């Protein structure tokens, strides 16, 4: 062990580890609630930081790096981890030391990452996590021996039970115990020589630091591509040197692409042989295996999957309705209270009808979002999510997506916001983007009031084949239309827009574990904070703008309907009428559509205002009667028909009438490009889809 680390006080530490190694649990145990979540500049990878507080008041910043199997940067997440360790990321302090979390029950693969970190000459301390699982599996690790062979301090931990956290904290205090280990894996002589030579050339002539040169030399030596592909990146001298290296090594019969990985694994094997004994288990099938035979069964697998989903949705709707009403009531109360303070007038209107009711409408969805994240967190933590992806991958593969895209799409039936936010589990950036782009096409719960009003008003409640009601079938048809369009668009986007090979579907199936409630609750807290903060600010702005547009220019006399008709929104509705006529809509519906750009269900209350319904509640009888009774002055026929209702529903299935989703898309994609694209493409297919529906409908009627 080389104690090159002096008595410098540690300020910034990064924590790194394989996926599923318990890194998040350990991070939470070390930092508690002292966490903040942000993004790395320019990319969509989440940056999570926390503070470790010591009894004497001193503190250390802990940076949670994305879970990664290696530093070879296969995915954006891994690239961030690598770049942080190479000091390439702006506004992210270069770590003074690393905590490397290693899953004791999966030692070999986890040690691979450690060997790469040791190579970077970082002071490192190992948290040998899930030591209890390893023991249960018959893996006995001689920690002292392992520590000696690796050259680093090892603290055995069980993060889920907080075992070893105290030891880890005191180790972090005494800087002496965090040491830089020597590189102890070795390459075959000839390669070692070429590697060292190339490393020094990179440092001497190509502006590399020792740290970056070491890795770059490995990449250059192992590349399967011809030297020509590096033209311009390096000097001609270096490239001709590299060419000679390639030729020499190839002639000696080395497989350059695997030699570095193999040499590391040989070192790992030597280390493990000395410090690990594995008792073969008598019990052939583990609990995990037994669960898997059912969960991935041809029949039971899908029965379980859809039952789990059905239960989750039932529960979300059942549990969320009470807090949703409370929040809605709370905002009404707040509006009333503020109404007493501010004298009637424009400001009164702006605050109550603009700001409070607008933000209230969005915050009402928070309970649904929270519950969805609770369940998604539990599914992820237990390991079931990976199985769901495993059994759904084939179906999703047909439209060019990944098994992991299924759950975000399914979540979007409740609300597209958690759907979009949960795409973070998809590693491939293209697959993730496509999933986010199509998620809002899935019929969310905010469309329900629109469907309900239209169906209750126009679809006769007759039964079909004795068991189904026509109304129910129409509703199902709308849901299927959304799902089908989402899959179709995903297929089109993958085929034409985001072309190119997706990274392979390689996914670990971790053993089933007891979920950690603390992790899940912290996760819910993070997500809801992001939603409230980011979405909240944009929505407040848009609510105020929409209020303004629906209020001005003002007329003093007249019914609310006349006032609305005269406002900017009304004028836009009238202005849009020529474009809406081909869809079978008039200016009144135009006003409804424009005013519900913020939130779909606003359509219902706007229609209430237009038809002069006092206190028009959702789906109220009087509104339905008014809509049914209206006569077209030109034709003398009812203005609103079954066909209009269906067209309107089709429009709402396909159109992006939700500012919160746009705000969340902006945050998740780190820019306005994709949310704007999404808004435009959905508007286009909504228009075209509704137009086709109207034309086909007219043709059927005649």
């Amino acid at each position, binding site marked *: 062990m080389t104690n090159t680390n002096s008595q410098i006080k540690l300020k910034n530490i990064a924590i790194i580890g394989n996926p599923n190694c318990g890194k998040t649990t350990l991070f939470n145990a070390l930092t508690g609630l002292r966490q903040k979540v942000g993004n790395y500049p320019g990319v969509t990878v989440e940056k999570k930081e926390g503070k470790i507080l010591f009894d004497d008041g001193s503190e250390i910043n802990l940076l949670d790096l994305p879970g990664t199997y290696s530093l070879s940067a296969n995915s954006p997440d891994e690239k961030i981890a690598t770049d942080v360790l190479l000091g390439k990321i702006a506004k992210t302090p270069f770590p003074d030391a690393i905590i490397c979390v290693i899953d004791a029950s999966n030692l*070999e693969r986890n040690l691979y990452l450690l060997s790469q970190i040791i190579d970077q000459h970082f002071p490192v301390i190992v948290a040998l996590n899930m030591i209890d699982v390893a023991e249960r599996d018959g893996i006995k690790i001689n920690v002292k021996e392992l520590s000696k062979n690796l050259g680093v301090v090892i603290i055995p931990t069980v993060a889920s039970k907080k075992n070893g956290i105290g030891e880890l904290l005191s180790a972090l205090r005494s800087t002496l115990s965090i040491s830089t280990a020597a590189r102890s894996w070795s390459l075959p002589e000839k390669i070692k020589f070429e590697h060292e030579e190339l490393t020094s050339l990179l440092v001497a002539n190509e502006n590399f630091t020792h740290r970056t040169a070491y890795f770059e030399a490995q990449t250059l030596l192992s590349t399967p591509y011809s030297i020509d592909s590096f033209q311009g990146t390096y000097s001609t001298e270096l490239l001709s040197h590299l060419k000679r290296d390639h030729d020499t090594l190839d002639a000696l019969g080395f497989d350059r692409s695997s030699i570095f990985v193999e040499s590391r694994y040989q070192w790992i094997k030597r280390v493990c042989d000395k410090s690990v004994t594995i008792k073969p288990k008598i019990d052939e099938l583990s609990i995990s295996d037994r669960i898997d035979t059912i969960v991935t069964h041809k029949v039971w697998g899908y029965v379980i999957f859809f039952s789990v989903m059905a239960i989750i949705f039932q529960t979300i709707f059942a549990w969320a309705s009470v807090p949703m009403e409370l929040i809605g009531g709370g905002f009404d109360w707040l509006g009333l209270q503020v109404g007493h303070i501010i004298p009637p007038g424009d400001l009164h209107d702006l605050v109550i009808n603009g700001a409070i009711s607008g933000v209230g409408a969005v915050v009402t969805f928070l309970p649904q979002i929270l519950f969805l994240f609770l369940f998604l967190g539990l599914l992820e933590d237990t390991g079931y999510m990976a199985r769901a992806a495993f059994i759904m991958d084939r179906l999703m593969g047909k439209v060019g997506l990944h098994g992991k895209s299924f759950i975000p799409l399914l979540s979007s039936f409740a609300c597209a916001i958690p759907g979009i936010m949960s795409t973070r589990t998809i590693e491939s950036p293209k697959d993730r983007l496509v999933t986010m782009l199509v998620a809002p096409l899935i019929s969310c719960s905010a469309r329900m009031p629109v469907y309900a009003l239209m169906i209750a008003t126009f679809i006769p409640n007759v039964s079909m084949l004795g068991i189904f009601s026509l109304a129910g079938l129409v509703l199902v048809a709308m849901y299927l239309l959304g799902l089908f369009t989402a899959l179709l668009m995903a297929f089109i986007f993958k085929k034409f827009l985001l072309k190119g090979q997706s990274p392979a579907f390689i*996914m670990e199936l971790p053993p089933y574990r007891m979920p950690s409630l603390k992790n899940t609750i912290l996760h819910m807290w993070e997500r809801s904070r992001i939603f409230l903060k980011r979405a909240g600010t944009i929505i407040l702005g848009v609510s105020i703008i929409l209020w303004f547009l629906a209020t001005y220019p003002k007329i003093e006399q007249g019914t609310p309907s006349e006032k609305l008709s005269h406002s900017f929104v009304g004028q836009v509705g009238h202005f849009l009428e020529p474009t809406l006529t081909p869809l079978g809509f008039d200016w009144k519906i135009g006003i409804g559509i424009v005013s519900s750009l913020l939130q779909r269900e606003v359509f219902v209350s706007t229609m209430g205002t237009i038809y002069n319904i006092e206190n028009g509640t959702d789906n109220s009888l009087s509104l339905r009667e008014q809509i049914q009774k209206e006569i077209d002055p030109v034709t003398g026929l009812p203005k609103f028909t079954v066909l209009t209702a269906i067209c309107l529903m089709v429009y709402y299935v396909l159109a992006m009438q939700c500012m919160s989703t746009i705000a969340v898309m902006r945050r998740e994609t780190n820019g306005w490009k994709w949310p704007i694209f999404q808004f435009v493409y959905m508007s286009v297919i909504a228009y075209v889809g509704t137009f086709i529906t109207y034309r086909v409908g007219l043709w059927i009627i005649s």
Partner: protein
Amino acid sequence: MNEITLNSLRPGECGVVENIATTDSTLKLRLLELGLLKGTSIELIRYAPLGDPIEIKIRGYRLSIRKEEAESVVISKV
């Protein structure tokens, strides 16, 4: 020694990795780094209910990969 590709194993059958035969260097590196090296024993646990992907066991852990990728893993059957 009969060399076959990983996707032709049946559930419960074992093999030893010979090499990764693919021109996709990212895929190759990924599989190597996950521990699919020459000489590593590998067991096919199951096929997904719809026939794809497959679940394999290597170095004491479980991995799911599509058949398409499994085709590039050359193994000798045990």
